[in-house]
């Protein structure tokens, strides 16, 4: 995947983000710069509160920077855009819509005809293997199924960038593993630029081409680790020496950060 | 409360009488006057006043036995006729109801009422006066638009010009006149129909009470008589006492002085002797029957429910 001529998809340029809260200012991000290439799979780890979600929200256009800019396809990001899809940790499905209704929500907004929207939505519902549940409401689905719907919904809007904020954080191990594999599989088929936040170092390594390690107070990029494990990867990858080496290294770095935060 | 013989129960503990009233001059003047001049004390009676918003609730309280005597206006007299209560004293002939037109809206005479919107509280004596007023010029309720509303809303409706005329009672009538000045034209009032529709107000007890507590009742009536006599000579002073009792503006109560024909004990005795009083009550029964509120078979002799003996005994 690491071809020679790489196009920069997302350019994060010296971003600073300060929140004003009752207890004074909180510097959530400071001097964050990063180029993310087209079709690249970036994973992000770091202690809680280091600004991972803030960065993702800025890329998504859900929050504004205090200073610095973010570009997508050389266009400055000012607002949300359908070329940047987001998958949230808590699924964020619309509980009053069926699986189908959720997946085609974005399509209907774009004024697409019902038949066409249904057709596209069904394609992605099949992709996540939920064709038996098209007309089910979210409350009738298990956590893993809900997250699959969220992924299908993000895919259906056909974004070129997929931003995921700990999408598997709330799932049990089995489901989590399974969804990781499905995600990898889909990404290998239909490449998109992925920005994937996780607390789980294993997950970061098994998915990412580069792992971004962030540090807190203020949130900065501490290190970028290249993961040179070839795709297709699977759960077996976890026992390869490359994996274990990367894991040990990243753990130690993240662990330091955790200790830092505790102080 | 069952003491033997002696009516002047000095040195003994006073008998407590719970009196139900409505917050206006007509309802309170005799009792308050009697209390202030010590007429009840003299009779060994301690009066406790309880305020009510309307006659129906007073009747209900009477039935439950939680009050002893109550003051009621004309509308509630259907109940004593039906045997639900007994009248032990006449209070007054009311002159509180008026039909008032708004000259601004073109209602200057009774004839002008045709086709107009008139505010009235259904089931009250004001409604009857309105009926009589309309009948005088050959109109019926179908010739006008009736708005049934709460007494307080009637005033605001009239002043703000939402209705063309009202049929209501004092102090609402006073408030209307105060606010509208010459624009408010009094078209008719109780006095105009006194022979057709006597607006009788009376004092009530529940059936059987008088029999058991005759002595107390007579003494209480004696107190009332003293209050009546005092009142006739001191209308304004009593109005101020009433205002004090119900904690409202004294001027507002003074304006209610014209609400009734205030009589003395002697005048009352004359009315009893020459049969005028009985005639009033009889007429009242007929009016109820005509209005469909009383059935033919429910009509009965006045002396069965008006206890003339209490009134005469108290005068001795």
């Amino acid at each position, binding site marked *: 995947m690491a071809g020679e001529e790489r196009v920069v998809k997302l350019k994060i340029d010296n971003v600073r983000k300060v929140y004003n809260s009752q207890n004074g200012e909180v510097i959530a991000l400071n001097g964050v710069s990063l180029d993310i290439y087209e079709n690249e799979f970036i994973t992000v780890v770091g202690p809680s509160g280091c600004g991972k979600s803030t960065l993702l929200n800025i890329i998504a256009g859900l929050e504004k920077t205090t200073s610095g800019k973010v570009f997508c396809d050389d266009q400055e990001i000012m607002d*949300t855009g359908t070329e940047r899809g987001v998958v949230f940790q808590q699924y964020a499905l619309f509980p009053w819509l069926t699986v189908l209704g959720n997946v085609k929500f974005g399509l209907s907004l774009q004024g697409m005809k019902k038949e066409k929207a249904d057709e596209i939505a069904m394609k992605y519902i099949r992709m996540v293997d939920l064709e038996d549940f098209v007309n089910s409401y*979210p409350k009738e689905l298990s956590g893993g199924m809900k997250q699959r719907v969220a992924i299908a919904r993000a895919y259906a809007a056909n974004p070129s960038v997929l931003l995921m904020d700990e999408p598997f954080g709330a799932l049990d191990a089995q489901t989590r593993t399974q969804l990781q594999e499905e995600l990898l599989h889909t990404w290998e088929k239909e490449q998109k630029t992925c920005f994937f936040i996780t607390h789980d170092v294993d997950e970061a390594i098994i998915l990412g081409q580069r792992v971004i390690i962030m540090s807190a107070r203020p949130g900065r990029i501490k290190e970028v680790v290249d993961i040179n494990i070839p795709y297709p990867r699977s759960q077996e990858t976890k026992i390869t020496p490359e994996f274990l080496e990367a894991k040990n290294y990243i753990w130690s770095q993240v662990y330091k950060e955790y200790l830092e935060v505790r102080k | 409360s069952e003491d033997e013989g002696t009516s002047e129960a000095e040195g003994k503990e006073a008998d407590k009488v719970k009196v139900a009233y409505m917050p206006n001059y007509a309802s309170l003047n005799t009792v308050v006057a009697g209390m202030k001049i010590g007429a009840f004390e003299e009779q060994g009676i301690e009066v406790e006043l309880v305020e009510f918003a309307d006659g129906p609730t007073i009747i209900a309280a009477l039935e439950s036995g939680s009050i002893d005597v109550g003051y009621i206006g004309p509308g509630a007299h259907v109940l004593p006729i039906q045997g639900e209560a007994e009248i032990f004293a006449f209070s007054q002939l009311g002159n509180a109801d008026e039909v008032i037109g708004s000259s601004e809206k073109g209602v200057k005479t009774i004839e002008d009422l045709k086709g107009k919107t008139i505010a009235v509280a259904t089931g009250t004596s004001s409604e009857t006066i309105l009926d009589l007023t309309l009948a005088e010029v050959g109109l019926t309720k179908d010739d006008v638009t009736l*708005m049934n509303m709460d007494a307080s*809303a009637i005033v605001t409706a009239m002043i703000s010009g939402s209705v063309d005329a009202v049929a209501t009672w004092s102090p609402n009538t006073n408030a209307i006149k105060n606010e509208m000045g010459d624009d408010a034209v009094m078209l008719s009032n109780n006095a105009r129909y006194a022979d057709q529709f006597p607006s009788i107000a009376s004092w009530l007890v529940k059936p059987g009470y008088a029999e058991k507590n005759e002595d107390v009742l007579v003494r209480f009536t004696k107190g009332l008589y003293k209050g009546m006599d005092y009142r006739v000579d001191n209308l304004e002073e009593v109005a101020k006492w009433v205002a004090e009792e119900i904690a409202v503006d004294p001027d507002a109560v003074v304006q209610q002085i014209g609400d009734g024909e205030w009589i003395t004990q002697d005048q009352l005795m004359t009315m009893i002797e020459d049969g005028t009083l009985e005639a009033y009550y009889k007429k009242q029964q007929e009016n109820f029957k005509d209005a469909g509120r009383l059935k033919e078979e429910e009509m009965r002799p006045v002396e069965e429910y008006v206890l003339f003996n209490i009134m005469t005994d108290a005068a001795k």
Partner: protein
Amino acid sequence: MKRVVKIVINQTLKTKNKSNVKKTPMTKSNWVEKIPSNLWVLISLVVAIFIWTILSIIPNTSRSFPNIFYVSESVVTMMQRGVFWSDIASSLISVLVGFLIGFVISLPVAVLMAWYRPIRFIIEPWIQFVRNIPPLAYVPLVVISAGVGRTPQIIVITIATFLTMSITIYQGVRNIDPTLIKAARVLGAKDKDIFLKVIAPASLPFIMTAIRLGTAIGLTSLIAAESTGASAGLGMRIRALNNTFEASPMLLYIIVIGVIGLIFERLVKLLERRLTGWQEKRE
């Protein structure tokens, strides 16, 4: 292997739903469980009529509780007077229109309160303030500004229902998960879409509660509302019948109001089941 995993997920799911069903933990006796709910309604009715009959026999209460025959008779009486249906119709119109206007106003007010701090801080205390004041107390004010007839009746009911509904809906909108709004935005929703397609459906359960409270308050404010001047109406007639001491038709009218309330309640329940079936009940 993958297949198995999937089955496990489905199974877990089933367990979850099942647990929604067994709500009441402590019912023990079995024959009680078997009595159908229709029969219960019947039993409840019989018990009530029994108590009523007793009240109509006790001398003290008999005048206010005429027995069931007199009350049924008075349906005929009131129909002969030609007011029974017009009273019901008039009150229904006032309550429904007042409720609808109150509802329509409370929706945007609730949303504005939830979104904009200044509006919340300025409006909320006043809503809370007026909410505790008996409607009868502001009847004269309404008559002054709106005259007599249908309008002020509707206004009183609008005010009373608005106060409660706006607070209820406001709490609902406040409780909307902000990520839902974010999710809609990243899918390309504009402010209008967010209002219509996210805020509105997401606050439906609270809107339903508001509707339920609103209709009840509309009915209990009926007497106050119709004291602003009415030529027909249940509340106005109750006052008039009270003035003329006609206990049977008065009790009848009180019962009519109660029955209308029950019918509203059922309708709202029906609506609720249809509209908020998607809602996840508490675990």
